């Protein structure tokens, strides 16, 4: 069920490398919006950071080992279908 780390059992679903890109930037932008009553003219800095982060993420390929197609292919290989 879980991986053992010392005396602790860690749930790999919860503490795995679940990539959530630009999470910090998004939350800071939303907090800024909430503070300024949805006026995003006052949140230019946070907005620019978020846009820059999303632009940086665009070039990176997604982890192919997490897709269902990868697992289907793997299972098919094992069965020799």
């Amino acid at each position, binding site marked *: 069920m879980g991986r053992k780390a010392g005396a602790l059992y860690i749930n790999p679903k919860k503490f795995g490398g*679940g990539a*959530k890109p*630009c*999470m910090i930037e*998004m*939350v800071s*932008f*939303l*907090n800024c*919006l*909430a503070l300024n009553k*949805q006026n*995003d003219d006052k949140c230019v800095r946070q*907005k620019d950071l*978020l*846009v820059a982060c*999303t632009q940086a993420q*665009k070039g990176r390929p997604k982890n192919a080992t997490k897709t269902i197609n990868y697992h289907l292919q793997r299972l098919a290989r094992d069965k020799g279908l």
Partner: protein
Amino acid sequence: MGDFDGEQKELIKKLVNFRMIDGKRTRVRAIVYKTFHRLARTERDVIKLMVDAVDNIKPICEVVKVGVAGTIYDVPGIVARDRQQTLAIRWIFGAAFKRRISYRISLEKCLFAEILDAYRKRGISRKRRGNLHGLASTNRSFAHFRWW
């Protein structure tokens, strides 16, 4: 369309294709170009005005319904670049149709008014973007449910 770059060409194509019904592209193209002629009378660069108007309407965050343990939460997420443009154009056209109270008013008049309003950061489509951002900032406490 000789002196436009790729993105501007794509924007004009999208504008035409979005409103097309039953494959009648010529009809929609006439409406869009008439709108551009109206915009040209405002003594500004039409394409730059159009791009700025769409940029002002583009949403950055949106909410996605996610079911967790039998409860449906509105989880805020980042909007992809293509989807931003798609939503902006859809909202501008939707707002133009809302402005068209009777068929006596031509669609290009309403579209012209909405694009100008979007350029000046006001109007129905801008309000819609504000509502979406408001919803995202209200539900920011559920951002940890995001896995994409």
